[in-house]
């Protein structure tokens, strides 16, 4: 089979791999040459496309990433962890870090690096496939899509809830109350950031009544800019649609579950990531 591809899993949750297995249509079309989750292979083989999921957390991650990237044509960083380090970034506070490292350095195991790193801090990345995890059809696009595929610009477009004239005056908690099934979650006072979050996911979360947490990262206009600009865009949406005080929005935007995703692009790397690199 032509166009072998490989999947290198660094420190992450394997959710991206599970999503790829769900995208089973690639079977018989491209050869899966490396993916230890489902395949016993010794050394990393030459591949046309290398999907990297997970963040660089241990020295083994670092070494395997360097070694594999040398044998790969195109390299695609897949998922939040590969793109920005992901959930473990929540530990990047001094007091937690110190505690963590002093407990862990007592063990006789491959070492943790002093800091969690995204993939493109170590090797060149050609494309980015954001999502936590990316949906199976996005994997198919990454493996087979034409470069000019256009996905929905934002989650709002995928969502389909109706916007109303309702102007809530205060935020509702993430899990508070029972949302009305047909109406825009912002109109119901939920902090949904789907309006400026990259589309293409088909909005499963908002459809099931949960506010979008932005796992696909910012839409094209913000990819190469700082997260502050994304924050501004989100604030403006709420200013336009609600009477919720801006400080309240501001505070909640820095909540951990959002910061997981909101910092996904510009803030975690010295490399500029261009919109055309992002699926």
């Amino acid at each position, binding site marked *: 089979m032509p166009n072998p591809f490989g999947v290198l899993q660094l420190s992450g949750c394997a959710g991206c791999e599970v999503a790829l297995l769900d995208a089973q249509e690639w079977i018989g079309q491209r050869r*899966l040459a490396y993916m230890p*989750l489902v395949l016993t292979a010794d050394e990393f083989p030459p591949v046309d496309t290398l999907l990297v999921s997970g963040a660089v957390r241990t020295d083994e991650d670092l070494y395997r990433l360097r070694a594999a990237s040398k044998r790969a044509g195109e390299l695609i960083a897949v998922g939040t962890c590969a793109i920005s380090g992901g959930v473990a970034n929540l530990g990047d506070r001094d007091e937690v870090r110190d505690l963590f490292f002093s407990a862990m350095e007592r*063990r006789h195991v491959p070492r943790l690096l002093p800091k969690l790193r995204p993939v493109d801090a170590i090797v060149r990345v050609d494309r980015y496939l954001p999502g936590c995890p990316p949906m199976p059809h996005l994997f198919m696009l990454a493996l087979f899509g034409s470069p000019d595929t256009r996905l929905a610009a934002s989650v709002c477009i995928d969502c389909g809830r109706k916007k109303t004239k309702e102007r809530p005056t205060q935020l509702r908690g993430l899990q508070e109350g*029972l949302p009305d099934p047909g109406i825009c979650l912002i109109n119901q006072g939920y902090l949904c950031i789907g309006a400026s979050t990259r589309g293409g996911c088909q909005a499963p979360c908002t459809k099931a009544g949960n506010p979008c947490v932005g796992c696909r990262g910012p839409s094209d206009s913000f990819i190469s800019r700082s997260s502050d600009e994304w924050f501004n865009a989100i604030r403006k949406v709420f200013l336009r649609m609600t009477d919720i005080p801006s400080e309240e929005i501001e505070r909640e935007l820095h909540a951990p579950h959002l910061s997981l995703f909101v910092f996904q692009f510009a803030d975690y790397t010295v490399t500029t990531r261009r919109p055309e690199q992002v699926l």
Partner: protein
Amino acid sequence: MPTLTFPLSRIEGHAQIIIKLTAGEVQHATLQATELRGFEYFLQGVPAEQLPIIVARICGVCSTAHHLAAIKALEAIYQVEPPPAAVYIRELLMLGQLIQNQATSLFLFTMPDFPGSEGLPSMFEFGGDDANIARRALEVRRVGTELIGLAGGQFIHPIRAVTGGVSSPLPEDGVRALRERIASVLPLACELFERYWELFQGLHDRIGTLGDDTPSHYLASVEEGHAYYGGNLRVLDPDGVEQASFAPHEYQRYLTEQPVENSYSNATLFNGHVMRANSLARLNLLPRLGTPIADIYMLRFQREWGHPAHAILLFDLARGIELVYCLEKALEMLEHIPDGEIKAPYTPRDGEGCGVVEAPRGPLIHHFNVVNGLVEKARFIIPTQHNILAIEQALMVAARRYVHGDRIDLELERAVGRVVRAFDPCISCATH
């Protein structure tokens, strides 16, 4: 004095086996987990209400279990009971989780170990009459993720369950469509499992053992007719007698966690004993499951290997029986989705609470302390941790079988792979 290191594949996450010899004697056999993210550390200070979203990221394979265990722990703190209709949806979510996981473990992880004298590198390499195994296995597996998607809103890192219940009812058309899908996949799953059983027997004939068969303690949180939603934790002693049954919040009286020097994963002991969790533990606790086809397989299993059964490769067959059970059970449950409230009101409050679910690998406990609405302490007692010492004990049995004083038989390489896969460890979870 040499150390043998065996990298592992076809398991979830990064781990390797380390076997240390001195003068031709096996000294240690270790399962070394080589990854770590540090959830127990970095969750400190996080708003409690966000836990169900964040902790799902402990594992993409078992995210459903973490999502629900966290919600149940918060409900224990907030003292709120979710309504029955919500619990029903959550049970469907767990069945989806199990179908997905057991199909993956059976067909993608362990089945390639069986054919020929050396096994195959992956499911994709089956040839001849078996050439279509991969496609069919993935078809069975996908039904599990479809069920998670239906019941959980998302197929990985689900979001429909929320503290107090679920955020929306199931869409009726989705329920109908999935019922049909499961009905069409169930015979396929049985066929594949029959073939699995045959190949398994072939392996047994070739190697002449099913691995470590030391009578052991077993831990599970199940009872007849259960849907992996978790309740009391039950312990079977090596003679098959139920020795303890305790509520999640009592776990510290029975289970102790110990750090493992050569690994990022801790290990759990039951009252100082090595124990086992996962499929075989559940089947040893439940002589019958309660669905027709699964119970036929149960009879066959018990006739062949007894009850309780102890040889570790039987964990593999037990997962197959559970796959059938979960498909049958889900089909049954999708027939009558109950009406009624899906969310109970509650007021967030501070406190301490535990939640348990029966995850694919055994009882998963989340334990939180909440102060001022923020997590002060988060502790995760992970099913794979319950099995760490049992895995190492089984590795020793295998190593001693294949190390003979002055030489090492390289069947050892395949043997350690089979041992570890029998326990289907999840390293992302175990280290978290």
